[in-house]
């Protein structure tokens, strides 16, 4: 909705249009001027440090070690390959995290509607605690306290990794659990809101048809709640993808930690940052795109 200027018309339509165009030209020039000023400063500063903008260094060997991931990587490989490895590591934790956080969130959100008093209290305690602690602290807790503090947890991860024949590291699991628990709390609030939006009569109708609590939820309530849940899920998924960059705190080699190391080695902050922005815009668009398709399917069949 665009707002028409509401002033009593002192100006004729044509004059007004001219004025609006002039105003926009002025804004455009102002923005361009600020950008030009910043770029000049940047150029002066980069020249002073003996760095020009270029992407040639991407082909040079990276030389830093990475934690073990899905893709093979040796220290002689190029920066470009290190970025690819980091991107795959990021995507790995985001995709698995999305699935686990959704499961935890749906269970947590549905638990609010259980007839069991203890279960309801536990569900709201979980949300209250998990949401009021910074996500970074979640990760640090799982990494330093659970996985580095308890040898049993560490050997458990090793055993699972051996069983699945996957390069699953302690860092990966700590990051995954931390993100899952934090995002799960937000998703369970989204799910709770969604279930609340389903009319109470639906529960009563299901009960009078002889449905149990679990079946009512699965077959009757959740499918209807999905409409209200999906938009909220979309933003939580994007948050999870963004929070995966906190990997730097537990030493998991995700894309951002590689950008960070690259900057420390080469001083190429602008170029590395530009790559990061591009990747994140792409990941956000991808998540939103998939969620929009899901949303359309739900609206059509729901």
């Amino acid at each position, binding site marked *: 909705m*665009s*707002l028409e200027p509401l002033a009593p018309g002192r100006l004729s339509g044509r004059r007004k249009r001219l004025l609006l165009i002039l105003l926009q030209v002025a804004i455009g020039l102002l923005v361009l001027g600020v950008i030009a000023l*910043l770029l000049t*400063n940047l150029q002066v*500063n980069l020249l002073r440090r003996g760095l020009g903008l270029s992407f040639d260094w991407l082909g040079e060997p990276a030389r830093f070690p990475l934690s073990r991931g899905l893709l093979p990587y040796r220290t002689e490989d190029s920066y470009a390959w290190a970025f690819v490895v980091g991107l795959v590591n990021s995507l790995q934790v985001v995709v698995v995290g999305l699935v686990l956080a959704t499961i935890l969130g749906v269970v947590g959100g549905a638990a609010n509607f259980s007839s069991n008093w203890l279960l309801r209290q536990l569900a709201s305690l979980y949300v209250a605690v998990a949401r009021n*602690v910074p996500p970074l602290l979640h990760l640090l*807790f799982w990494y330093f306290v659970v996985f580095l503090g308890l040898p049993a947890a560490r050997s458990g991860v090793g055993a699972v990794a051996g069983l699945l024949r996957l390069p699953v590291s302690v860092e990966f699991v700590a990051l995954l659990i931390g993100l899952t628990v934090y995002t799960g709390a937000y998703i369970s609030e989204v799910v709770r809101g969604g279930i609340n939006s389903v009319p109470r009569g639906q529960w009563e109708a299901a009960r009078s048809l002889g449905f149990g609590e679990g079946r009512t939820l699965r077959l009757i309530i959740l499918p209807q709640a999905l409409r209200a849940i999906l938009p909220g899920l979309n933003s939580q998924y994007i948050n999870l993808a963004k929070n995966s960059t906190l990997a730097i705190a537990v030493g998991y080699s995700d894309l951002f930690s590689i950008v960070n190391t690259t900057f420390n080695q080469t001083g190429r902050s602008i170029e590395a*940052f530009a790559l990061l922005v591009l990747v994140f815009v792409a990941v956000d668009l991808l998540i939103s795109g998939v969620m929009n398709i899901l949303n359309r399917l739900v609206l059509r069949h729901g």
Partner: protein
Amino acid sequence: MAESPRSGPRSRQLLLRIRRGLFASPLDTVITVVLAVLCGGGLWSFLHWVFLQADWAVVVENIRLYIHGRLPVDQVWRSWSWLGLLGTLCLVTLMPAGMLPRPVLRLLPLLWILILPIGLLLLASGLGLEPVKSRFWGGLQLSLLLTLGTILMALPLGILLALARRSSLPLLRWLTTGYIEITRGMPLIAVLFFGQLMIPLFLPEGWTLNRVLRAVLSLGFFVAAYMAEDVRGGLQAIPRTQLEAARSLGLSPLQTIILVELPQALRTALPSLANQCVASLQSTSLLAYLGLIELLGISRSILGNPDYLGRHLEVYIWLALLYWLVCILMTSLARRVERSLNVTGHH
């Protein structure tokens, strides 16, 4: 005469309610028993750990560091007086509106804006005191300072962005929409990293900004994009009739925005704006990885001390408690503001 369960004696009602709430079906009973055993066991081992195994020396011996960071001992009173002022302001704000004289009530917003420069003056150089370098600022105090600075910068910027996004000038609309959407898609730690390392590159030669200011700038620009969306939601919720009424009263577009639209939009957006404020506090913890010794940063360096090897859990529980308390405080402040706005809204 048979008593129906509802009118039965109290104890029997309670018994019935417990039965319905916890042991309604065999499955329910199993769930309750399993959960109760798990909760009880967890609580027991947690309390056992807290009182018998945990070594709280890492918290107790460093309490000054957690609160003031590395402020020189003889300067700590400056930090205390700021925290005292801030605490008093919180208490006054939380008091029921009826207990406060009107002028104080009217001054409150101004006091909240002034508390930040007062803190900076007390800490930095003003008031004729010996300056403390920004790298000595730290602990809870720095976290609060960063949070306040971020909110005071992000809120006005967010309001302007929201208004610009709804402007009738297409260019302004495109620019702000692009800014808001791209910023909201970026991970915060990347934005802060950008702020710390790249702001100096964009400044004219010879200009410098200290780390704390760079952090507030980048956090403020980031949070503003989120607040803009909350304010926009509030603006969209205003009924069209309000705008028509404003026009028929002969208000100019600017007057309409300031007198009619913003007050209503901000009241609607207040709960989500409060969430953003709480999120800003939590976000300041990321700065621990960019060289600031705010609450988490100072804890990291305390944990690096070999005397406190492996005392992570004690420190993290203490930190979680502190963050949680400040979050609760912020939420109740927001509720208080919300209530007072609703009261004035009805008159």
